[in-house]
């Protein structure tokens, strides 16, 4: 309870409130522009958090994450194009409402559902994370090895239509992570005698390169000569939903928030499946399922509540076990590490003030974008008139400055540029880049804990005979093979039809 009081006092300080406000507005802007993503928004802002207090820095990043997911619904509703992948399900009924001249109402419902979904998941996060973290304190090297393998096993489900490509990207990431000192003996590997590579590639330039610079290249590629503005529908109709309308969709919001939170906890699934599953459930539970797809308010509320609830859920494995469940949380690890905060059970012991401030700030962020969403909806169409393409060169400059800012080292800018080019090419040929980041973060933990375990117990049996390690390894096997089974069944279905 003491921690909660400290968190409330901390969050209600002027500087933190301003940080949350800035993060929320920036997140909404970045999320709403098609072509820009939550991942890019968080990656590009990490360098700005260097000189901040750890709590302020991580609160800024997480508020951008939450608000950008909501921002994705704005272009989904007004442009028929989701700003983020998680907004794809919102298009179905959201754009129908826009066509009927009710875009204001759609945006209002989206803001309410997103805000409430985020608040519910933040509350679940606040109560479950400390309990899980306490259990995780018992973990030794074998458990950490199994946990890291479980985290890495997610890469098979990140390969999109071809799981093998996800695995290749993950293995490439593991090899990249071996550059630098060997974690036990300190033997230099793949450094070519260069002092710049002695500690391996810095995580932040790699992240900025893979997610921001590569995105900048994609935006530049899509630039059209002479076309400098974008056509967007103006916001029409009443924005603020009536109490009757909100009451009617409350069970839907609550159900979707629970679905979103639990899907968020499972590594490798993410916001878009959560939104579609919730949409289907809302349709199944509705008294008028035939109205879905034709501008039903519940069809906007369900995916929006779910994809914002994923944000809180995804932070549970991140904060308690140090396992990033999706791309944004992998980047958040980078944000935590630059402040010396290593996610995992010890984070709650050593930096409880930061963790509880983060919990409370998430509630404030979600309420804040609910208010901004309802009160500023009329101006959202103006945001969409800014062509995302013009952002390309600006993002590139921010990527360069951000990479330099970490160690004041020009080598980091070259690393960023190299990974930017790799990220751009990989995206072009349908190879996901998230597995690279997951592997870079988790592979050193896996190698170190494996070698420590083998020093303690001589052979691999020492690891698999530990119950918790065994459960995580079993989960890793299931997680790893599920996409292949799904792929096999899909191929068989295609062949038979």
């Amino acid at each position: 309870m003491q921690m909660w009081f400290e968190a409330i006092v901390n969050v209600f300080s002027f500087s933190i409130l301003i940080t949350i406000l800035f993060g929320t507005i920036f997140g909404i802007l970045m999320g709403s522009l098609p072509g820009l993503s939550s991942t890019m928004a968080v990656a590009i802002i990490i360098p700005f958090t260097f000189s901040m207090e750890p709590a302020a820095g991580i609160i800024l990043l997480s508020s951008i994450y939450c608000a950008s997911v909501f921002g994705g619904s704005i272009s989904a509703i007004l442009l028929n194009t989701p700003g983020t992948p998680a907004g794809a399900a919102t298009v179905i009924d959201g754009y129908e409402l826009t066509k009927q001249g009710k875009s204001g109402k759609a945006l209002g419902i989206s803001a309410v559902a997103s805000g409430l979904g985020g608040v519910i998941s933040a509350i679940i996060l606040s109560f479950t994370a400390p309990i899980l973290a306490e259990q995780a304190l018992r973990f030794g090297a074998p458990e950490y090895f199994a946990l890291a393998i479980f985290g890495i096993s997610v890469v098979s489900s990140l390969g999109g239509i071809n799981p093998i490509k996800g695995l290749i990207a993950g293995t490439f990431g593991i090899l990249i992570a071996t550059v630098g000192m060997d974690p036990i003996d300190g033997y230099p590997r793949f450094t070519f005698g260069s002092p710049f590579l002695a500690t391996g590639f810095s995580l932040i330039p790699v992240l900025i390169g893979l997610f921001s610079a590569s995105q900048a290249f994609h935006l530049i590629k899509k630039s059209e000569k002479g076309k400098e503005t974008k056509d967007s529908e103006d916001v029409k109709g009443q924005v603020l939903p009536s109490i009757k309308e909100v009451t009617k969709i409350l069970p839907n919001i609550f159900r979707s928030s629970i679905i979103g939170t639990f899907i968020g906890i499972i590594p490798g699934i993410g916001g878009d499946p959560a939104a579609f599953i919730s949409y289907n459930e809302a349709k199944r539970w509705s008294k008028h399922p035939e109205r879905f797809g034709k501008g039903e308010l519940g069809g906007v509320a369900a995916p929006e509540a779910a994809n914002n609830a994923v944000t809180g859920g995804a932070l549970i494995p991140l904060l308690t076990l140090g396992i990033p469940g999706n791309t944004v949380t992998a980047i958040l690890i980078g944000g935590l590490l630059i402040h010396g905060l290593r996610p995992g059970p010890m984070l709650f012991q050593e930096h409880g003030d930061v963790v509880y401030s983060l919990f409370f700030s998430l509630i404030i962020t979600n309420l804040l974008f609910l208010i901004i969403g309802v009160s500023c909806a009329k101006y959202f169409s103006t945001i969409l008139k800014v062509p995302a393409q013009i952002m390309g060169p600006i993002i590139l400059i921010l990527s360069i400055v951000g990479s330099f800012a970490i160690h004041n080292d020009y080598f980091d800018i070259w690393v960023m540029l190299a990974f930017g080019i790799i990220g751009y090419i990989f995206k072009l040929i349908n190879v996901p880049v998230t597995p690279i980041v997951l592997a870079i973060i988790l592979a050193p933990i896996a190698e170190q804990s494996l070698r420590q375990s083998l020093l303690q117990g001589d052979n691999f049996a020492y690891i698999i005979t530990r119950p918790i390690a065994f459960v995580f390894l079993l989960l890793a096997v299931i997680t790893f093979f599920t996409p292949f089974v799904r792929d096999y069944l899909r191929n068989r279905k295609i062949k038979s039809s």
Partner: protein
Amino acid sequence: MLRVNYIFAITMSLLALFFYVLSLSYTEDAAQWPQFFVVILVLLCIALIVDSHKNPNREKSEASESNQDMGKTSYVVYTIVGSILYLIILEFFGFLLLTPIFLIVLFKLIGYKSNKLILFIAFGVTISVILIFQYMLNIPIPQGILEEIFI
């Protein structure tokens, strides 16, 4: 996408081979982990080639979607070459002098016509970055020849 997958698999295999050759001179403990994943990477590349051969249409829909969205690859080449040149001379000239020129050239290359907008963005972004990083957050930015003047 079939040919692309073959090229990707061969490139990754060559990279794996490069890592393997380098790791041969390491101690056994230091070499085991990377060597294990080198083998895995080669096996996965073989799997990708076999899979692409067996299911050539697997990525067809995604590939056709991305082809429609091809845009101008030449813009990206200009940007990458421009960025490399920018980085080479950044250390000497510094961020303040070089960035507006880089942005103006980049916007012109990718086809933006409004000179007012280009100038506004080029100088606006440069000055904003300096104000935010250098003065508000106390994070140094590359200063080059202006190092003595610009604190």
